[in-house]
């Protein structure tokens, strides 16, 4: 009645399988929760930056986007959100726009034909049924 050596292998195999499936589940969860910051200039996506994930954690990046008319926008991407911190467009509405964080939100700079938007599915927040900010 006592377990034999082969039985031990069966149980080890089961533990390995359970471990592997947890690893698989985790990696799949990351993939689904991937949030991208896309910068669209004059109708085409020129930058695509990952917002979540291990390498994006805690880092602050500033991108200088050269607009089609020769001007510029500076986009700051951090864990707290995405905002345009400087631009030489006449109205500077994009700079005054509040920072965006959730998928589906966007900042638009009409003079420079620039759209900064967040795409993908957030890890716990959906696009709908969220408080407007």
């Amino acid at each position: 009645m006592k377990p034999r050596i082969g039985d031990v292998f069966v149980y080890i195999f089961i533990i390995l399988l359970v471990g592997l499936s947890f690893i698989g589940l985790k990696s799949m969860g990351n993939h689904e929760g991937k949030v991208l910051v896309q910068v669209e200039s004059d109708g085409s996506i020129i930058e695509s930056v990952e917002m979540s994930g291990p390498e994006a954690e805690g880092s602050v990046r500033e991108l200088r986007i050269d607009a089609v008319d020769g001007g510029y926008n500076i986009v700051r991407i951090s864990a707290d959100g995405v905002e345009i911190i400087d631009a030489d467009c006449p109205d500077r509405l994009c700079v005054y726009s509040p920072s965006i964080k959730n998928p589906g939100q966007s900042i638009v700079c009409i003079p420079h034909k620039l759209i900064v938007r967040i795409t993908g599915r957030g890890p716990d927040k959906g696009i709908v049924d969220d408080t407007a900010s």
Partner: protein
Amino acid sequence: MMKKARKLTLLGLLVAQALVLHYIEGFIPVLAPGAKLGLANIITMVALVLFGFKEAMAIVIIRAVLGPLLGGSVTGILYSLSGGILSGIIMSILYQNFKDYFSFMGISTAGAVFHNIGQLLVASWIFDTIGILYTYLPILMVAAVATGYFNGLVARYIVGYLKNKVELGS
């Protein structure tokens, strides 16, 4: 050599028993969706020990095709076939080559594990996502340890009894 009619009768009996077990375990509530007691696996084990690989697989295939027709959907055939065949092959390999290293409970548990793997692979293929595999595997593995042990124990007692009572020949 066992008489052909006698062997056929015994195999028919085992198929009938497997089918009944398959049917009644549908009424027994289980903890997790997809988890089953796998009582029919007892019969597979018994057939494997008393007869051999070919006969055991024949019982598995007949049970897997007829079982879902008794009380289930036709797509159930695909699941029970994939699980049954994979677990039957694994149990045969373990029993016939490594009999000395495995107890009945160990072989039965391995069979339960591969039954689940076979079914989940087919489910992933049908639903076209590997996520099903990751989500269900852990809980089904835990269930497989318990049911595999129980089924192995039952099979051991049945084989121990039948080996003395039934004249199998060969």
